[in-house]
């Protein structure tokens, strides 16, 4: 009989308490019940599909942002990167008169390259990610507007709806499936797939261990042979990938892109990840949590409309929710550690 604590089987309840997303799940349930009672029509299938869609447009980006935060870094350029990605895709197809899939491919390369640039500058200069990505954020904001104006001579792109490949690309990035009379937007599927893949990477692969390690203690991770630089660059490229999916969705839903948009969304992605249990200092969090955080955001932003409240108060609620969720997360984590 051994009593080594490392091979003790922990009880299911204790394992549940140790999950990063537990606090946010409790919060999400509370918000759901709250709006179900107060907001007329919130529980209609069509309303729920609108809420899910709103959540998915945030959630697709919240997944890679959460992974990045677990890895101990920030990305303030994530919001405008989505717009950049859509702009590149649209303008390349239009200007080259190419099949829209060519633009989509080029956009993927550019988005990944911008992500890699962020990661490379970060690891090379040793500057904090806050500064590096703030620089990228400002540069991209200017590039989005400047290049669009230079190439299209207006502030939005020209429509590519009549070009070859548009229909199939729309089917992939922006179609709507009707299941039993309810519209399910394809972004919801993208979102679920991303959450599943990210969870698998985090919990079942060596790369996942690296991500937790570089976020927890960079120097210790390097000492035991974790490729810190590669991991961080990879995480930023992950944000590029998410931005590419979101950007293509924007483009193929509306077939015209406004160059000035996306500013400020990076904070919403970070909020979703933090509400979902990611620690701002890194080394702790989950992909599922970011999805729950995005769902909370979607429920609140649309729930206020269904409840017919004055939208002026939305930001106030969002801020209060962020504080409450983070406090709840901290409390749950403390309890979990105390019962170990």
């Amino acid at each position, binding site marked *: 009989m051994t009593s080594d604590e490392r091979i003790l089987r922990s009880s299911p309840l204790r394992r549940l308490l140790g999950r990063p997303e537990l606090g946010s799940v409790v919060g999400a349930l509370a918000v759901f019940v709250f709006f179900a009672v107060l907001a007329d029509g919130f529980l209609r299938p*069509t309303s729920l599909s609108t809420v899910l869609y709103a959540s998915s447009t945030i959630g697709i980006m919240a997944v890679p942002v959460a992974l990045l935060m677990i890895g101990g870094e920030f990305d303030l350029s994530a919001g405008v990167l989505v717009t950049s990605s859509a702009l590149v895709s649209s303008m390349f197809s239009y200007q080259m008169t190419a099949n829209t899939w060519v633009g989509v491919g080029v956009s993927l390369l550019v988005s990944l390259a911008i992500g890699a640039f962020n990661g490379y500058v970060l690891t090379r200069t040793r500057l904090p990610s806050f500064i590096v990505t703030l620089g990228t954020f400002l540069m991209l904001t200017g590039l989005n507007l400047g290049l669009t104006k230079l190439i299209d001579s207006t502030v939005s792109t020209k429509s590519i709806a009549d070009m070859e490949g548009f229909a199939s690309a729309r089917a992939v990035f922006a179609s709507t499936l009707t299941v039993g009379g309810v519209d399910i937007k394809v972004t919801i599927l993208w979102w679920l797939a991303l959450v599943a893949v990210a969870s698998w990477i985090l919990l079942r692969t060596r790369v996942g261990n690296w991500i937790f390690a570089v976020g927890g203690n960079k120097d210790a991770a390097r000492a035991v042979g974790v490729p810190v630089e590669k991991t961080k660059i990879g995480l930023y490229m992950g944000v590029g990938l998410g931005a590419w999916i979101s950007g293509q969705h*924007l483009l193929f839903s509306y077939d015209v892109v406004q160059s*000035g948009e996306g500013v400020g969304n990076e904070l919403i992605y970070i909020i979703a990840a933090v509400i979902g249990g990611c620690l701002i200092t890194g080394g702790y969090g989950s992909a599922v949590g970011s999805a729950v955080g995005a769902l909370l955001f979607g429920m609140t932003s649309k729930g206020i409309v269904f409840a017919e409240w004055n939208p002026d108060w939305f930001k106030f609620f969002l801020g209060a929710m962020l504080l409450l969720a983070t406090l709840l997360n901290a409390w749950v984590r403390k309890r979990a550690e105390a019962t170990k």
Partner: protein
Amino acid sequence: MARFRTWAGIALAGALTVSVAGCSSTGGKRAEDARAAAAAQGRSAVNTPRWTFAMITHSGDGDSFWDIVQSGAKQAAVKDNIDFLYSHDDEAQQQAQLVDAAVDKKVDGIIVTLAKPDAMKAALARAEKAGIPVVTVNSGSAESKKFGALTHIGQDEGVAGEAVGEELNERGRKKVLCVLHEQGNVGHEQRCAGVRKTFDGDVQSLYVNGTNMPDVQSAIEAKLQSDASVDAVVTLGAPYADTAAKAKQGAGSSAEIDTFDLNAKVAAGLRSGELGFAVDQQPYLQGYEAVDLLWLHRYNSDVLGGGRPVLTGPQIVTKDDAAALEEYTKRGTR
């Protein structure tokens, strides 16, 4: 603790004394209440059922222009026995989702702005499928009919710009600065393009960050200092006219300041001669008419405009009109 209580008591007593003794006989809340009491009384004038209309705009948070649109819509809603819901978002995607939410709520009518028309297309198609009548306001006159809306109410931005260009010609101006305070706003680009079209002199665009007033002021100031030949500045929003006037003082320039849209400050500026003229698109009318037209459509199947936009502007406002308008701008209806 005891000491704290003593101090708090003294502070409270002091505040009360000051507020009683220091009454202002002009302006303030009391004057506002008197104005409100003098304004139209809020009572429903019809006995149609209580319908719900939702208005979804592309406004950012805390925008003075959209406040006036809203107050017009609310006034009409009171008269027409309407439950009026308002929501807004400056991101196209979010705005489309808000329209979706209104359709999900099964409202009886939708009022929407098409500043980013392509983003609204699918949402408006959903509204049409659900049989909800739509009126577009303010922006999107070109797309309104195509998207199945009953009517569009607003001002053609190009036409408004052209009116400004003509007015500037009459005033003998040679070089104009067009100040764009929202990068990426198509309507703003159209306004400056309209000015360019009719103005005989030179038109220069200046992009400023509209969410940061000191930044706007310093940008205009720098431009006026570096180019003394600029003899007119056109701002695209009422709050920016005052800022441009400050910049003009700072730069020691003699340029005339003109602006799109009105507010209390602009009306006062027109009266004092600080501003040359303003181009009003009557936002109150846009909100009011939108609600009223939806009501008429529900009640009587009426449609206004004969398939063409119903224009609420441009109306050139000068010193002569300022006195009357000043009172209305204070009331928040012009």
